[in-house]
């Protein structure tokens, strides 16, 4: 766990990309789930943050 935090602080691609992937997946699940309207309402923000983060962090060094 500490290794992941350290790698994130050093702006390494792996953990940041993982975080962006989780955000995108979470956003899509929130968009299409049938349980709570409030989750649907915040889905776009989560997906957008994940997607923009993914574009940025894919330029970080390995």
């Amino acid at each position, binding site marked *: 766990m500490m290794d992941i935090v350290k790698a994130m602080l050093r702006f390494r691609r792996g953990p940041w990309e993982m975080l962006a992937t989780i955000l995108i*997946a979470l956003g899509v699940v929130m968009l299409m789930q*049938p349980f709570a309207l409030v989750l649907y309402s915040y889905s776009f923000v989560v997906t957008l943050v994940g997607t923009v983060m993914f574009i940025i962090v894919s330029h970080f060094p390995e």
Partner: protein
Amino acid sequence: MDSPIDRAAIKTPDGIARRIRGLSDRTIAWIFVAPTIFLLLAVNIFPLIWTIRLSFTDFRVNRPNNAIEWVGLRNYERILTDPDIWATMQATAHFLIWTLVLQVLIGFTLAFLINMKFKGNDLWTTIIVFPMMLSPAVVGNFWTFLYQPQIGLFNYAVAFVTGADPASFSMIGDVNLAPWAIVIADTWMWTPFVMLICLAGLRSIPDSIYEAAECDRASKWRQFWTITLPLALPFLMLAVLFRGIENFKMFDLVVQLTGGGPGNTTTLTSIDLKREAFEKWRTGYSSAYAVILFVTVFGLASIYVKALNKVKER
């Protein structure tokens, strides 16, 4: 002497040759690539930027002379708090998930069977691929007849298996069955596509690997899980990517089959978006809707391509 070949072979005029000679290889490469880049910018990037801009306005394309008001995030707010659009997203998710699951399972199984090199397998491949060659409009009409409660073959087939009365259920008229009706029709049409891609993957596996596994006395089951599936996985994932993107924007087949009904049970996002943009003429609102869908598909495609590259690297 004046044939096209002779004319093409004539030396470049001195004036032009002198100008070209002064250009670097990099510049010449840019000159060749520039028209394509310009076309891409004009056809893809400019409309995207324009759509994002429109999504913050109340612009209506059927009222071009009205003043365009900047509404900020109001369009996004309305879409993301609308229970009807939420239901549309759920209908799309149902359609997307089930078509992908069924097409991958059936497509891979068919590819595995066709790959077993039996007599007449070319004929079977042609027969299986046939639905994919039809127009979605034709397939939509065709399945509308198959689903007819009175004369539809599908109802009779179900009745034959279950013993129910064929006229007792309507696939495209029942709110519970209609979402499955579009899943079945799309699966029938596009499973051959998944099968073809999987077949390419299976045929790319060298026989020597199986021979080595036979020498090691690996069972057929073990060979499937440790050779066939891992080596065909990149192809399978590619098929899922193509079908996922296609089905996310599925329109023609569903419009022809159910028209989005009964109620809104088969109204997919693309159908809803078309109604907002070209029936209600709410251009700004529908632009925001399109941006939400774009970000979703773009995000999903990004992580999927990353996963695909990882699988290919293994």
